[in-house]
């Protein structure tokens, strides 16, 4: 008890002084005793140990996009599909992907993703799927979807953690060789794979008939292919539709990758097929060396430290792109370092000086042939295939450079098409109404149908004569019908917002829209000049979809979760120029259409008033009303001669064929009447289903 009292008396001294000065403690004599310390360096050291990367990410799974069950599902599919596409493209195979999501229990889903890629060597399989930070993409500067080598193994780890079920992998390298089948768990302590089947060695499935039987016996799914990989993960998840959903991700992926074929079966057994519209693989991206402008001082110092022995001048020339002997000499001069001096003799201060010299020396921009854009043609094809509309335009900007990293911007635009609300079938609407967790019909409409906006939802609710606060789940059949009719009949295009699809290296970005440089630039561009209405600081309105793709060897994301692109001025400028290029074409298209419409409108207005005028005049001076009308009609025809040209012999206005419009290349105009497949897809139940989700 005495000790406690004394502690109370002198709290300031004992606590503040303790760790800093042992002397004070000693001087205080017995009042503050050594035993008061809770622990000492020695005992603490016993608890200090290495944290394995897998343990870290198991605890911090939100960093990798596993914040909630809904996002976990998306991230899992996304990582697997991205890996498959990267593998196929690297091997030069036209990708074909199968995605199958099944519900296995309450809040549990089994996700299977298969590709027709080159397959994986037996000994590599456990490492790739069962070890975090194992991959081929991290150490090279080259355009690819994945970057770290963390995604798929993290997905597997999440699955194991939440359901206890192992990750199942089948991989086949050649039709004659056996396929390998593994069931893996990641050992989070060691960040090592643990193979469960075949006594820790995996199982080989023989090719041909025999193999098929084995597969059937194990209850594994496998679409028979000459080669390829299938990964199956069971995880705790939530399947939803709408924004940020798997549906949306796959649709957007199909747009940006017109060379892939995608088969998708969702948990409700709807099948979706995205067929490739291009039979050519994108050119293989080249790997490049870093450009001096893109290197930070710490990284430079590290490179110098790790380098093999060589002269500094040689080091600069060989480790960086665009450093010619002349440039190397200039850099050394600027840093006051002799060009012949060996790298081993340089220290941090030298590295700092060289770094400063780099900033002040003019170095030609990096080669940009290492980037492979989608290409205007394929963007048009991709958009046309997936987004209904009547006008498509695309623009690929020439490559540019930010902070020494080459990048390239591509923009695609689709205009027109019916609103997502108009594409729904009654059955689907009922389903949607059942599965939604929104409280009111208005909310349901806004959340389910992207781009609809509050205004459009209000219009629909009003037209359906529903109460504002009515719950979507409690609708009576009659009310449902009214809602359905209202959705079909209301033209929501006026209040509809532009939909912005963002891509980085062909991967759709679905979250943090507002933080992204793309969205900010779209908002900052003046669309009014291009015939769209736009409020200040908001996305333009109208039935428009915009896709913006940034291809780069290193895409600058705002955070590790790879959800938004950072706002470098160089990038924003390129995006703006791209948007303006497609915007101009849209403007021309809309203006032309408006003009044709105006001419016939004009004629109509005159006709409308002529009767009134001739009636009034006749009542004043008694001339024959019909005679005067005829006369005036002749004048009207003369005056509106140009509109006249566009009237057919029955006097009906003909919409001028907009295809005659010369908009230059990279524009696709579709007659909306003939484009039913794109607009009213829902009628083809299997295929169309997701469209209206994705569109939203």
């Amino acid at each position, binding site marked *: 008890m005495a000790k406690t009292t004394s502690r109370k008396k002198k709290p300031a001294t004992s606590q503040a002084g303790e760790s800093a000065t042992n002397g004070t403690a000693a001087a205080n004599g017995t009042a503050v005793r050594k035993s008061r310390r809770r622990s000492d360096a020695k005992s603490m050291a016993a608890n200090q140990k290495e944290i394995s990367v897998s343990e870290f990410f198991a605890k911090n799974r939100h960093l990798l996009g596993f914040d909630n069950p809904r996002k976990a599902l998306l991230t899992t599919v996304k990582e697997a599909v991205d890996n498959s596409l990267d593998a196929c493209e690297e091997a030069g195979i036209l990708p074909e992907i199968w995605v199958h999501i099944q519900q296995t229990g309450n809040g549990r889903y089994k996700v299977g993703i298969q590709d027709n890629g080159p397959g994986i060597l037996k000994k590599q399989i456990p490492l790739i799927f069962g070890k975090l930070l194992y991959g081929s993409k991290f150490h090279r500067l080259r355009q690819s979807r994945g970057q770290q080598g963390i995604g798929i193994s993290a997905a597997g780890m999440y699955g194991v953690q939440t359901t206890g079920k192992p990750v199942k992998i089948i991989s086949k390298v050649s039709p004659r060789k056996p396929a390998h089948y593994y069931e893996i768990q990641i050992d989070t302590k060691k960040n090592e794979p643990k193979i469960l089947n075949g006594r820790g060695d995996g199982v080989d499935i023989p090719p041909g008939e025999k193999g098929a039987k084995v597969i059937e016996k194990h209850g594994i799914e496998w679409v028979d292919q000459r080669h390829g990989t299938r990964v199956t993960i069971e995880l705790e998840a939530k399947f939803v539709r709408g924004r940020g959903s798997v549906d949306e991700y796959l649709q957007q992926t199909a747009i940006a990758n017109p060379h892939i074929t995608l088969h998708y079966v969702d948990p409700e057994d709807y099948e979706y097929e995205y067929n490739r519209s291009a039979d050519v693989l994108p050119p293989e991206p080249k790997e490049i060396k870093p450009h001096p402008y893109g290197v930070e001082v710490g990284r430079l110092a590290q490179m110098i430290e790790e380098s093999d022995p060589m002269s500094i001048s040689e080091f600069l020339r060989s480790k960086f792109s665009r450093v010619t002997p002349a440039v190397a000499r200039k850099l050394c001069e600027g840093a006051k370092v002799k060009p012949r001096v060996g790298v081993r003799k340089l220290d941090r201060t030298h590295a700092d000086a060289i770094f400063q010299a780099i900033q002040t020396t003019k170095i030609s921009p990096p080669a940009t042939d290492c980037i492979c854009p989608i290409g205007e043609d394929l963007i048009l094809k991709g958009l046309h295939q997936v987004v209904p509309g009547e006008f498509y335009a695309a623009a690929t900007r020439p490559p540019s450079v930010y902070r020494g990293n080459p990048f390239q911007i591509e923009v695609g635009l689709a205009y027109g098409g019916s609103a997502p609300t108009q594409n729904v079938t009654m059955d689907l609407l009922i389903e949607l109404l059942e599965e939604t967790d929104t409280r009111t019909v208005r909310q349901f409409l806004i959340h389910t149908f992207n781009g609809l906006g509050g205004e459009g939802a209000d219009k629909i609710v009003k037209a359906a004569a529903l109460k504002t606060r009515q719950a979507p789940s409690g609708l009576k059949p009659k009310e449902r019908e009214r809602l359905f009719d209202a959705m079909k009949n209301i033209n929501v295009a006026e209040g509809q917002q532009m939909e912005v699809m963002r891509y980085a290296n062909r991967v759709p970005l679905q979250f943090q829209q507002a933080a992204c440089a793309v969205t900010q630039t779209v908002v900052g561009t003046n669309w009014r000049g291009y015939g769209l209405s736009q409020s200040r600081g908001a996305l333009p309105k109208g039935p428009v979809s915009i896709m913006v793709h940034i291809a780069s060897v290193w895409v600058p994301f705002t955070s590790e979760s790879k959800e938004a692109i950072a706002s470098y001025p160089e990038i924003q400028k390129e995006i703006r120029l791209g948007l303006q290029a497609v915007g101009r074409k849209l403007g021309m298209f809309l203006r032309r259409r408006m003009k044709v419409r105006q001419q016939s409108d*004009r004629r109509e*207005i*005159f006709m*409308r*008033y*002529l*009767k*009134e*005028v001739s*009636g*009034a*005049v006749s*009542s*004043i*001076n*008694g*001339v*024959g009303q019909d*005679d*005067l009308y*005829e*006369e*005036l009609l*002749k*004048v*009207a025809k*003369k*005056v*509106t001669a140009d509109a006249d040209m566009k009237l057919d012999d029955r006097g009906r206005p003909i919409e001028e064929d907009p295809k005659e419009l010369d908009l230059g290349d990279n524009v696709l105009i579709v007659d909306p009447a003939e484009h039913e497949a794109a607009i009213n897809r829902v009628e083809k139940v299997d295929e169309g289903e997701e469209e209206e989700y994705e569109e939203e």
Partner: protein
Amino acid sequence: MAKKRPVRPTANKAPVKLSTRDKKTLSSITGLADGVVKAAKGRRDPYVDIPSRTLSNVRYSARKRIIEMGNSKNRRQLFDLSQAKAYMRTMLVASGCKQLIDQGKTTSLRGMFYMLKHTIEKTKENTFDDQNECDTIIEDVEVLLDSIREELHLYAENRGAMVGNITVIDRGDTIDCSRMGSGGYAIPSIVEPEVIQLDRKKCDAKFILHVEKGTVWQRFNEDRFWETHNCILTHGAGQPPRGVRRLLHRMHNELKLPVYCVLDNDPWGYYIYSVLKQGSINLAFESQRMAIPDAKYLGLRSIDFDRCDLSDSVKISLSDSDKKRAKQIAKYPWFEKKRPWQTEIQRMLKNDFKLEVESLISKDISYVTEVYVPERLEAQDWLD
């Protein structure tokens, strides 16, 4: 086509006897219609040139001391997308007026609106959607045909009242304005000689006192001000309508009575005075018949707050738009060169408050009729 038949008012059941003025108006309406037929025959675009009723097209005649309309005109074409509808409406109004004249009847502006309002054949569009659209077209037709509203057999709602030592004949009825009780004689919208006859012999009044609104007028009437001072008392319910202005003009000119105005001390009051004296921009074409360049401004003045020793509570502070308006009015050419008016307006701006005539009630209920106005008249203290 278009064989012109002679206009036959006989088409109506009861033939109406047309006055010479009506005949003149009719012929200009017919001229308008003939123009359309002629243009149509010549395959030309029919149009009408309407003198423009805007500030840019009025000027102040220093000699006549009234606002006059300039010569600029706006062309209204049938085959112009933005004007087609207005053109059609112009023709409709013209035909409507023709109908009224033919039948010898008059109607209100609102009546005309209903007469012409209908849905255009095969559309959902109305010829007119609200009365304002119709009213402006009527004013257009007035200037276009150079005939005033009365000649088109149109009238507005009665507004304004009169009492005093005068007897007028209104549509044959003799009206003794000194025996009008508390309500007064409602000044009709049309006060042309065909309707109202004035007689010098039947007027004892020596001057006209025009006040801004009914409430003040009521005060003067109740105190029998017109009796004690032998005058005519009128009000125009704010901005005086055409009927009131025209009647004041006629009494001023035909009976040689001076006109004095008692208005609020605010930009609005100044403007009412300006309209009475010089005419308005919108109706500049009627200034000749309505403006009274000799009208005098008796009060309230911006010095009255101090002069009459009013209490602070009656102040109403000036709004931003008041200040803006006051500065605008100070720049009107007919005020610009008058030192007293400039001092008056500057003083009000300096005061930074306005005064209503009713504020004098704070002194005494009848202060305005028993002290204020008699004193001003006595001292001949007014602004011109």
